[in-house]
């Protein structure tokens, strides 16, 4: 096996091991919560969420591979990461509100119409987000979650920067970086899928209570994400 091939295997293994040793602790509650809340279509929801996350990882890996600079890129996307944290944190809070059945306020007829256009738009968005039965939210959620700062992801991006710096051309660096991070992302999926499946199996028996617990977990996880901004 050439050294380049072994880098790709290493990236997949980093994702796989990190998935069980790191991501379960950091992202497990969020995945468990949406697995319980999404209902029968949880596998499709999980695939969409994972595809979104892997897409973002690949784009970041490609850009860092292209430039060969880890610090330069991560510093330039700090504001984007903060926006991603705010967006995903508030999305999770509103999904949690939806699960717990507190969205009556947002659904009250005529309430939105009496407010300004911007307020109406926000309320409409909140209502859409809180309608957790829709699968459309999971791919964008994965895309945004991919930007959440994570030590394990940073380590993989450092490796992509090294591969990019050692590449013969910028295009080669871009392709290498994107491929490395795509494999890393793929490696992280089994652990989170397992958490999701376990949550689903348990939810068959305790559906009512776990469904509400999922709503609470989503609100807490969202609040934790937002607290990282301060």
């Amino acid at each position, binding site marked *: 096996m050439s050294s380049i091939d072994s880098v790709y295997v290493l990236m997949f293994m980093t994702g796989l091991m990190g998935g069980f040793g790191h991501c379960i602790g950091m992202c497990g509650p969020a995945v468990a919560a949406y697995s319980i809340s999404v209902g029968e279509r949880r596998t499709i929801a999980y695939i969409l969420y994972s595809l979104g996350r892997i897409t973002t990882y690949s784009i970041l890996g490609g850009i860092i591979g292209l430039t060969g600079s880890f610090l330069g890129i991560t510093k330039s996307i700090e504001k984007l990461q903060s926006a991603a944290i705010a967006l995903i944190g508030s999305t999770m809070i509103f999904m949690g509100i939806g699960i717990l059945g507190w969205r009556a306020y947002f659904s009250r007829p005529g309430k939105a119409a009496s407010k300004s256009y911007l307020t109406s738009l926000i309320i409409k968005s909140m209502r859409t987000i809180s309608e957790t039965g829709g699968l459309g939210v999971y791919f964008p959620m994965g895309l945004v979650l991919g930007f959440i700062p994570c030590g394990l992801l940073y*380590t993989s991006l450092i490796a992509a920067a090294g591969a990019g710096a050692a590449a013969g051309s910028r295009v080669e660096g871009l392709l290498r970086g994107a491929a490395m991070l795509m494999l890393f992302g793929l490696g992280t999926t089994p652990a989170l899928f397992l958490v999701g499946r376990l949550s689903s199996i*348990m939810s068959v028996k305790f559906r009512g209570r776990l469904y509400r617990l999922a709503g609470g977990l989503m609100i807490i996880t969202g609040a934790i994400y937002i607290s990282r901004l301060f």
Partner: protein
Amino acid sequence: MRMFIKIIYRYGICILVTALMCCLGLTHGIGILSAEEKCDLSKGACMKTVGDSEVTLDISPKPVKAMESLIFSVHVKGVNTGDNLVLELAMPGMYMGDNHVLLKKAGESRYSGEGVIPRCHSGKTLWSATVDLPGKGQVEFPFDVLY
């Protein structure tokens, strides 16, 4: 089927407990520090012995910060080493992926290389730098990082 679900429950609980321990930091730093190892790398270089060899590690600039370019300098005494050494950066109790720094020869028994410590959003600040001495073993230096 019922037995299968029971097994899944048990393993699931094990995984969730391990994840919780990682979150709460219960495994944090186990087996790392001893009385002679309390040298502070954020203040100066630290020396350790492995067999009859001495290994000194210094990190600059100080204080040691995450998400900054850092220079790792190693001085090895009493052992024949090659042109390069490898230093591994890790966080005790939390898998952070393979973060290897290649240390190139920078003089007689001296090695130097550039690396980055990623920021961990769990808030844990204890990291370790492990120098691999081929044929002699590994020397681990725990240190705190500023986020």
